[in-house]
């Protein structure tokens, strides 16, 4: 069962084309990884899926219904939550408030609640009254992840969640991702960190200059294939 699909998705910055006919899909319960170098179009793709960037209506379907070009709030209400690149916590809100605001637009009962998030990241409970931006980078990433979980999303988008974190912290964050997948949500991981992405995903899409250059199961792809798709050229 396909949860999210894009059909020939294109996107522009002004008249600079950033995406050229992207076709991809995420099945129910599946974890896919989008890898690509800086500027490959990954963030633009995330923007289009979450409604922050314009897209043709039929180019993106979620649960079989077109969602391209909808407002971000409407898309979120349907069950797509984003862990944005750079965490993007609200500085005026404390940790708990940052978590609570995560389900502002979608109040659905499910596996995830404030308590469940605190069980996943016990440290956050200790810090719940602290200003979110006073936490360490890894803890902030936990808040961002927890905030996205609060709406019990059917599809969780993780944009560069390992960026700027120490390797040990990255391991913790990805361990949490396993727990999240176990609860049944589909996950789409966008990473520059290929190794990390391959390790968690069921399928991989490689993006280069706005096009999908390679797709497949991680174990079926050779290192050379991936680096060619990643860097372009015959390297």
């Amino acid at each position, binding site marked *: 069962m396909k949860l999210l699909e894009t059909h020939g998705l294109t996107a522009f*910055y*002004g*008249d*600079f084309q950033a995406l050229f006919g992207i076709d991809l899909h995420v099945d129910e319960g599946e974890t896919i990884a989008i890898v690509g170098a800086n*500027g490959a179009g990954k*963030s633009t793709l995330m923007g289009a899926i979450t409604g922050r960037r314009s897209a043709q209506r039929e180019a993106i379907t979620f649960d079989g219904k077109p969602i391209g070009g909808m407002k971000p709030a409407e898309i979120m209400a349907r069950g797509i939550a984003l862990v944005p*690149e*750079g*965490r*993007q916590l609200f*500085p005026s809100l404390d940790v708990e408030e940052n978590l609570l605001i995560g389900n502002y637009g979608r109040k659905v009962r499910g596996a995830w609640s404030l308590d469940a998030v605190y069980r996943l990241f016990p440290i956050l409970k200790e810090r719940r009254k602290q200003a979110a931006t006073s936490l360490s*980078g890894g803890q902030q990433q936990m808040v961002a992840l927890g905030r996205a979980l609060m709406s019990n999303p059917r599809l969780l988008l993780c944009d*560069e969640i390992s*960026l*700027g974190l120490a390797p040990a912290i990255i391991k913790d964050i990805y361990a949490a991702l396993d727990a999240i997948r176990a609860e049944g949500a589909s996950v789409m991981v966008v990473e520059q960190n290929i190794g990390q992405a391959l390790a968690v995903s069921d399928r991989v899409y490689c993006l280069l*200059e706005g096009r999908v250059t390679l797709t497949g199961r991680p174990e079926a792809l050779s290192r050379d294939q991936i680096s060619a798709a990643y860097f372009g*050229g015959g*390297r």
Partner: protein
Amino acid sequence: MVDASKYTVAKSTRASTVALWVMAVVVVALALAPAFVSRSVLQDLFFLLTMIALAQCWNLLAGYGGLVSIGQQAYVGLGAYAGYGLAILGGLNPMLAILLAGVVGAVLSIPTAFIVFRLQGAYFAIGTWVAAEVYRLLFAQWKALGGGTGTSLPSEVARSIAGLEWVAEVFDVRSSAARDIVAYWMALILAVVVIGAMYLFLRTRNGLALSAIRDNPDAAESVGVDTTRAKFAVYVFAATGAALAGGLIFFQSASITPQSAFSVIDWTAFVLFIVVIGGIGTIEGPILGALILLALQSWLSQYGTWYLMVLGALAILVMLVAPKGLWGWVVARYDFSLFPTRRRLIGPDTPVPDYTRPVQEMKTPAPPGVSGADLPNEVTTMFDIETDVLIVGSGPAGLSSAALLSSYGIPNVMIEKYSWLANMPRAHITNQRTMEVLRELGVEDEVYQDAVPQDLMGNNVFCTSLAGEEVGRLLTWGNHPNRRADYELASPSRIVDIPQTMLEPIIFGKAMREGCLARFKTEYLSHTQDENGVVATVRDRVANQTYRIRAKYMIGADGGRSQIVKDLGLPLDGKEGLAGSMNIEFDADLTHLVAHRPSVLYWVFQPGAAGGIGAGVLRMIRPWHKWLGMWNYDVSAGRPDYSEEEIRQILFRLIGEEVPLKVTRVSYWTVNNIVARQYSKGRVFCMGDAVHRHPPTNGLGSNTSIQDAYNLAWKLAHVLKAKADPSLLDSYNDERQPVGKQIVTRANKSIEDTLPIFETLGITGVSTDEEMKRRLDKRKMSTVEAEAQRKALNKQIRNKSYEFNCHGVEMGQRYRSGAVVSDGTPEPEYTRDRELYYHATTWPGARLPHVWLEHEGRKVSTLDLVGRGRFVLLTGVSGASWVEAAARAGAELGLDLPALQIGPGCAVADTFGDWAMVSEVSDSGCVLVRPDAHVGWRAQMLSAEPTVELTRVMRRILGRA
């Protein structure tokens, strides 16, 4: 020369010239209006003119300066009260009082600005309003002028204005009407002066800077626009204008109250609506707005409050629907401007590019860990730039490309990662071929002025130190009498020595004068290309902003660590880091050691010197007080870390005496032997050190770079002007890559050639000076061995001519590519050593031989007849048909193809008969010379159908076959 008038920076448009005349007529008509119109119309016109003046002041403030004030009534009121005070209480002539009122406004605006400038944006707006309220309340305390209830202008004061009686007499009106006329004229002058001053100001650098502030204050500040000062100036200007208007308005109305003088509705609301409805940020808009206001007023003012409501609603509507106002709408729709304050660069055959126009604004994703909303404004890129050719790097290759392309009329942008041109005098030998390029650019004389001439360059000394024993000497750079003629015969230009630090600014100046847009502190990051062009992402390292430059072609002249070569994945042959050497720049007067043997280079053989570029070297930068010492180091041990004292000791050893000296800079480099197998990919062309990296031996680096540029520039120009097919550009690689390969090989071979001298002297591996001396003394003995050694040494030193007299490598390139069409003759034999000697020939592919001719009474070189971006056909006395054919072929191909006959009775006289000796074609033959002075094709004699033949050849060269 390229006709400079074809390529101009234009701020005026034809419409604006016409408009200027229309304006002049309108102003004259308005000046004469009092003779024709009724007093009430005159009062309307007075209102119109004063409102225009006020509106322009506010427009400058808000529309250009980004200072949205709603407190301009402060200065209207101040001017009015100052005028009244000076005229009534001070007894001044009202005209003088009004002028002084402007001064009062200006003076008081300074402390006011000090306070309100502490507020930003919307809060600034209200702050100015508070300031106006303070002034109103203070003036309401001025009992002598009626306090809160105001006063009226005594009629004797009103009548005392200069010229009143004359006006009353001429127009035959009563004095009150005459006062209206005088006031009206003053309003006319005020409006014209305000508009004129504003127009002139906006065309200045500061004016343009203002727009930069408006568009992006942070960026403008960081690129050196002093925002506070510019804003302050604008604030004072607007205050002065408003105060003058205030003085005038209340002189005309003849009564004043604090409420009317400081009315926010009359002096700010109306003014604001005029500007917004007419079009903010333009000079035309407020004039249009004032006319609309006057019209609305005459229709609607009887409805009082409704009039104001309509006006408010209209302003809101305009702001929402057409935020640039009515005039902005006109401009957007018809691209029409009466007062152009932006610059346009207009080339002869190019669409009009406008560098100042932001092509689009785009939001960049905030860097990780920084949220967009944390910043005061979202980080937006400055703007995209669109140009024909983007040149990355401002070394000799990049600069020459910029200068040549600009002189050919091709819009180009040159970016440079650092803040200025070369800071190290690395390249210095400037050979004749390069001088010929500089000659075409018209900067040859400038170079001669700064350069060390040929005859001071050539006593190449090999010694144990400058003060020590001289082992041998070689006359170099064509200074030996038996080589001098070769050099003089080959070129109209002379070889010189000029440090890169002095040559680059000369070429840069030329490039900028010709219209290149250079952006320093701008780093190339990456690029993409498709069938239409190249988009490079670059970073402004001052504003720390990333933006994109779109170009049809890109030139990668980004040096020995070229990112572009890496990004393109151009295949590189050879090795890097073969040996290490350090450059020590220092100041020391060594005249006593060198003046009797002037040279650029002094080679020093000392223990440990063999390595690096072959020996220790002292190189003259400026005779004889600025020097560069070169000493080798072992690359495998990594870069050495010498103390300053150790560096001084190295220099003392090279010099051989402890002379007073000052070390100014030390830098390290390695000997490389790298050439790119391919110079270009798609629309990106690499040149200079990016594609050929080699040691300085032979002095070919900068020379080859400039000649790379000379080869590509005309090809790009022809393709961009649609005179040639893009396939012409393939010939760049075909022609220049072999040259790069040749010079890299040559330069490295020259290093190797130094070693045999050490060997012959038997000093390889010696570790002490004593040992060295002992070995050197061997050659002085009267033995058979010593004689053989002397002979061998002489041979090895002479062999160094391959480095220092390598005229054939410098001048003798013969291109083989699709842009050269064979005439069927075989390549001429080399009669002498092909590296050492230049062989003149007109064989297609070779450089046009130089001989002196006479043209229009002046001595000119064959090379002076050609170049400057054009193909030229040279023919002889019997070549009239070729001249005709060239005209026809030129017309058919749509390009300028001048033809010149050389010979007796022709336009060009072969004064010395030299052309006849070198042309290698008969008097009815022809030589087709490409814009880079290489022969593209030649014909031994007249062909049956010269036009057809010439057209075919040109088509082949241009890829249009």
